[in-house]
């Protein structure tokens, strides 16, 4: 039962990562790396090495948006042109490919961008209330390691944090 959440604030990535290495190495039994959330002021480039690969589905949304732009764009334009009451032809075909290409190109990007944006909002789980353990120090210069765990593991994890020069530890009951 993961009924407790604990936050440890570290001075820098090295110290936080060494703590995480210990968690990965199952120094605290029952606490795995998947229970860990890392809060940081910047994104560390080698974060995967520490936290392991966590999936991100964003590009699929983008692709879907772009493909929608492509198909919808062309069909929309072509049907509008074909059903237009009058024809501003200028000697050109009713469905002119060059100009439709330009517009479809724009629509691919338009829908792609918006799809990406909404996917971002959705996938990064924004719009949620920050939990009580959020520390403003994280946005300043400290690294926060949040672990969800059973109360029984609390003390051993605290010890592990302290080994790695944790600056501050906060905890909350999330039952």
């Amino acid at each position, binding site marked *: 039962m993961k009924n407790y959440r604990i936050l440890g604030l570290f001075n820098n990535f090295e110290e936080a990562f060494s703590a995480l290495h210990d968690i990965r190495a199952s120094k605290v039994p029952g606490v795995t790396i998947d229970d860990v959330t890392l809060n940081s002021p910047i994104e560390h480039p080698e974060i995967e090495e520490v936290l392991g690969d966590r999936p991100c589905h964003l590009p699929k949304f983008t692709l879907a948006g772009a493909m929608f732009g492509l198909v919808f764009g062309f069909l929309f334009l072509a049907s509008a042109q074909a059903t237009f009451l009058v024809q501003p032809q*200028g000697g050109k075909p009713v469905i002119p490919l060059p100009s439709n290409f330009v517009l479809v190109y724009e629509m691919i990007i338009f829908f792609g961008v918006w799809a990406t944006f909404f996917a971002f909002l959705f996938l990064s789980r924004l719009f949620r209330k920050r939990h009580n353990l959020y520390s403003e120090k994280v946005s300043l210069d400290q690294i926060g390691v949040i672990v969800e765990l059973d109360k029984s593991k609390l003390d051993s994890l605290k010890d592990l944090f302290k080994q790695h020069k944790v600056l501050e530890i906060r905890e909350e009951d999330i039952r």
Partner: protein
Amino acid sequence: MSLSNILNNWSHYRRGAEEGGHHDYEHRWTMAINLDKCIGCNACSVACYSENNLAVVGKAKFDKGQAMHWMRIERYFDESEKEFPDSGASFLPMMCQQCGAATCEPVCPVAATYHTPDGLNAQVYNRCIGSRYCSNNCPFRVRYFNFYSYYESSWPEPLNLQLNPDITVRDKGVMEKCTFCVQRIRVAKDKAKMADRRVIDGEFTTACAQVCPTSAIVFGDTMDKDSQVAKLWKKQQVERVVTKQNKSNSELRGYRIFEELNVDPSVMYMERVRDTEI
């Protein structure tokens, strides 16, 4: 269904002017102007003012270049084997050429100018938003823009009583141009349809052609093979759509201005003649 419409008529929708275009033309209103007869007297221009409710802009605005004259007589002083002014001036009546592949049409963002099944370039005043792109893209520079609202300044009472009720008075912000007197075309076509017949050649003509004292302007329907204008085009071996005329006799007088730009003008001019033997 739109989708099936597109798929079924795909080849039709992909037809450009070279393949006959989108329309199956009912009429093809065209003109032939004999520049040897044209004396440059401006009667056509004033007749156009009278017929089409053109605004008189006054001296200051004329000076700015904001005048409206759908039909203008251009006067040139060159193009002669002899040195000017030996053989007089050259006069050129210039109005909208009602191009078959008009460059003004594709650039209008709201399709206020389009191609009618009569082969005319329509300008729909109430659709126009005044982007003026069409004028920029017109090689003949025959589109005129309402830079002001001229209703009160140009037709102080009772001059407004002269306004032709068949034609809209254009307000500020609207592009306008020669329509080949579409209100007359409309009346003639309605009349013909009411009697279940085709429009007869010579039944009506445009204001400029009607007034022309020397009958230099001939207007008609080239779809009607017996019309005067169709005969003139045929005699001069001027073809539509092409960008370069292929005549059996290269000395024939008919030509179209800027046909090499692939705009397919509907007005054929016939070369001015000068007697060089004297």
